[in-house]
């Protein structure tokens, strides 16, 4: 099962991309590699600029690469701080987790702001609030 974090779609895309990048930096990827993002995000049908980031309940293993850089991830945290989602102390702590975990595997959820995790919706809540389409209604439309 998963929970779903409401975010701006571009914010979710960047976060997913940069989380994957610290596990598999672009510099070490093969040109034929396909994978570029860590977790999925699903845009709202009625407002594609908003989405939910899907967060599995289980541990999301993130083996942080020894050659990784946290620069781009830090920019996301800085933007979250500007938005008021995290305090500077939490921003610094998140950057430190990423920087000091090189060569180790951690749960990717350790790199998410506490406010975002606290706002995660269950699948049922995400459907009820219009973030996700209702499978039953999808099937019924047009009948």
């Amino acid at each position, binding site marked *: 099962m998963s929970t779903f974090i409401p975010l701006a779609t571009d914010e979710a895309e960047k976060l997913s991309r940069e989380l994957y990048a610290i596990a598999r930096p672009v510099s070490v990827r093969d040109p*034929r590699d396909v*994978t570029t993002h860590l977790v999925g995000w699903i845009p709202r049908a009625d407002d594609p600029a908003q989405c939910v980031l899907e967060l599995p309940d289980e541990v999301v293993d993130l083996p942080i690469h020894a050659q990784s850089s946290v620069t781009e991830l830090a920019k996301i945290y800085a933007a979250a701080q500007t938005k008021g989602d995290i305090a500077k102390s939490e921003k610094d702590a998140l950057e430190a987790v990423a920087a000091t975990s090189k060569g180790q595997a951690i749960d990717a959820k350790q790199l998410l702001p506490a406010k975002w995790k606290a706002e995660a919706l269950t699948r049922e809540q995400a459907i009820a609030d219009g973030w*996700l389409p209702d499978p039953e209604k999808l099937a019924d*439309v047009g009948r």
Partner: protein
Amino acid sequence: MGRLLFLSPSASGPPAFVGPLDDLPAPAAAYSVARRLLAAYEGPLIRVRRSSDNAELDIGYDAAGDLDATALLTFCGVGDGFLPKLYDQSGNVRDGSEATAGNQLRLVASGVLDTQNSKPTANSNFTSIKSLDFSWSHSGNSLTAVAVATLTNNGPPYARFVSVSTAYGAFDYDNVSSALILGRNGTTESHAGYRIDPLGAKSMTYDVPASIAGKFDGTNYTAYTNGAAGTPTASNGNFGFAVGRIMNYTFSKVQGVQGKLSELVLWGSALSDGNRGAIEADQIEYYGIVP
């Protein structure tokens, strides 16, 4: 095992490989995580991403045409392996791909191959977001899909083994310009095709691998399980699509089917009963399916 055929006595060299699709009309797309399907195809079957460091590698087939499971398991070690790319063996380069790690189907779990009846498979791992996307522009009014799949009973209703549409996010029930080819029929133990409503449903047993097929012939949709047909059901509306999604729905990735998929072959025409029956019989034999 891929079929082996001695075409003529030969003083040296291995017998020529003959794939299960070689005697059939050319497919629009042909995917298998388990075996080579056509003699003309000499590329990899899959690309795998391992969990230990997220490195990726193409995996091909052995001398018999079966997935090189040794290479796959060696690469994955004691970790997991996932499917960022499923190569199209038809020669049309309609590879299925998924760039998001969390959305990739699983091939190996803790060093052990995911299987259906001991054959390699792609496993949705009991979440509804797994998928592979491919491009295929088709304007004809007929098509056929044949797959080897297992359906579990803990996924969303109307989940999709494979769907097609004019574009990702397009709502096919509104524009009637696209169709789900193979999908779960509500919450029942069966699969069906869709053009507005479920069409031509045919039962399949939960958690049991089956050869499932769907065919639009321009007038009717018919579903098949292990070669046995459901009731042909009239379909209507214009037809035509540009994109497809394996193990999920082109509209949104929240309607992924939960289960397994080892093989999927698509034709842009309605296969004759004889040709459809031939590939179904081959799948039943190869995968040890009990009809």
